[in-house]
């Protein structure tokens, strides 16, 4: 599951020899952002099926490798044994329109992404305060002391286009 999440939002290896994370991008990815914590939270509705999905993913990886004559490191789960390019190609297949299991793989992708882009397993203000890698990389600014966002400056404050000539007095199209 770590390897799958890392394919959705890739990150750097946590330690030398980290096999689950391919190291395909700088900075933390979905895994560092908490994808596994999120998936293991029963609020998502995926928790009970994670082991089965992991087994299924490995079966798909083995089939994928066999079909391409790839030799996999038998010390690793088959999906983890694929390099990042092949992991990406397989995930693209599994999430493509028409794949019979597409919904499951899309849900996994959705929550992997949500761990990174919104830290859906944590209070957002806490995630930012703790340097959550996804929110930090996206440049999400911290809230005020009351954990609410406010932006005093919000407008260029001038007319920037002609309005449509047929606009009605209520501000609607004619």
């Amino acid at each position, binding site marked *: 599951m770590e390897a799958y999440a890392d394919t959705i939002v890739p990150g750097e290896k946590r330690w030398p020899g980290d096999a689950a994370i391919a190291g395909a991008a700088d900075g933390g990815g979905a895994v560092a952002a908490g994808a596994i914590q999120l998936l293991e939270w029963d609020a998502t509705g995926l928790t009970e099926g994670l082991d089965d999905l992991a087994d299924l993913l490995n079966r798909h990886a083995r089939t994928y490798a066999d079909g391409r004559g790839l030799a996999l490191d038998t010390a690793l789960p088959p999906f983890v044994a694929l390099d990042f390019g092949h992991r990406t190609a397989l995930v693209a297949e599994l999430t493509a329109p028409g794949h019979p299991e597409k919904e499951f793989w899309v849900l996994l992708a959705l929550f992997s992404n949500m761990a990174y882009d919104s*830290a*859906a397993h944590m209070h957002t203000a806490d995630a930012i305060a703790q340097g959550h890698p996804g929110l930090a990389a996206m440049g999400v600014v911290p809230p005020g002391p009351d954990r609410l966002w406010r932006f005093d400056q919000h407008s260029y404050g001038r007319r920037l286009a002609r309005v449509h000539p047929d606009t009605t007095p209520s501000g609607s199209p004619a």
Partner: protein
Amino acid sequence: MNSAEQTDVLVVGSGFGGAIAAYHLAAGGASVTVLERGPWLTAEDAEHDYKLGSSYTRGFDFTVGDGMSILGGNCVGGGSVVYFASMPRAPRFVFERRGSIGRRMWPAAVSRDTLEPWYDRVAEALPVTPQDWHDVTYAGGLWAAACDHAGRTANPLPVAIDTAACVNCNWMMAGCRFDAKRSLLLNYLPAAVAHGAVIRPLHEVQAISRTDGGGYRIRYHVIDDEDYRITTGSGAIDAKIVVLAAGAGATPVILQRSEAGLGPMPHAVGRYFSGNGERLNTAVVNEDRVAEVLGLSRGEGAPAYGANPIGRGPTVASWDRLDGSLPEYSRYSLEQLYFPPGLGTILAQAPDAGDGPTWFGRDKKRMLSRWNSWLTIFTMSEDDNEGVFGPPPATGNAMRISQQMLGRGNLRYEPTANTRHGWAASDAEVKDILERDGIARVRPWTNDVVGAYTVHPLASCRMGDDPATSALDDRNELRGHPGIFVTDGSAVPGALTVNPAMTIAAVAERAVPGIVRAARERGVAVRYGAPAPDGSTSGRRGVLPLIRT
């Protein structure tokens, strides 16, 4: 029959269609009960928090179908609590649309002109006000400037927002913490309650059947406050009149499930669903070119734009293609939009992705690092009412996957060439505007992940003059089932090319006198003629001459 509670009027859902009916009927003297499947959230509940279980997931539903996913409200106040409060009236040509049926979709009695007094009622009630350029956010301003640079016009949108109270936090999809957004929690619903209406949150209606006395029995489940997958009870209420306003993704499902108790439904129940022809494009802006080409500046030390998260949803739309002389399926509006993370990034495609995937992976991560420089443009076009609901799920309108927000529904949607034509034309126009002179790089959201998507579901139980292609008559009464009215977005016959809330609300306002008349015929002591929720009377003066007595 088991004993059940009694009410004159049972309203299903508390969004625009439900709240407006509930207010007028309660103010007119009827006993009114509103069953709402979602929670009752107030401003204090509106959190700035993406954590599952916050108001961001409590208040709305994301229902994945086969080819179409729907985002809709799931709380007291319905869509109005989670919407972006853009309230344009639908352009005149929309009411003349023929769509795929070879005849006018809307009833002959409904046109822009005949709906205008009802629009006025809504505008007074919420209220809806025009914005000026000082209200327009950086994102809206950037879109306006880009449109202007491309020789197009752009309009500040009319909104149901008190812009003086708005702090531009862009959290409005989780409810408004500051009560700046004029949701139904601030007007129709409290006024309905003041007149005696009872609103029951976390009550999910399952089915309707007939009673021996000529009325209807409505069966409901009570839903757990935190985990919507859990049912904590059930019950039934008898009513003389039913107003169905559960939203276009749920109203037809309730009626489908009710066939056992009501008899056959009109053919159009659960058919002709429209996603309002919606489509999104996300651009990644080149900050230097925004300054050089468009002359925009936020002041010393700030990027020229870099303001994706600042604002309040959409503030500016380009309406150059809302031209009734153009052929059907080629008319659309292009509206600047903000969509929060969580659901608002996954479908965006990296504009500069190479041969690899566009919606996940390395290129997508790079795109996310530029999130502050994103500009999202929302297309509302003319689709072909392609959506059809399959057999209803065991309960509710979807099989719930997560404790909140995420479910699997039975809507099937295969976009026709007409719909795809509108999307392609709008994609090309957005690209032409935003990639001109290097302002940005842009790409549409993918439809390959969860199908097409809509935040404005419509038409799944639509009104019309032709019984073969409409479920409701021109007074919103369900054909063959007198005393059941449908007043939500499912009653609107087709795509509107603009944000639909104003039109849904106006259609609901227009339906109320007929519902009052039907209630009176069933012995309910109720009159039509309430002022706006705050007591204002100009809207009422405009419509009273139109009402048959």
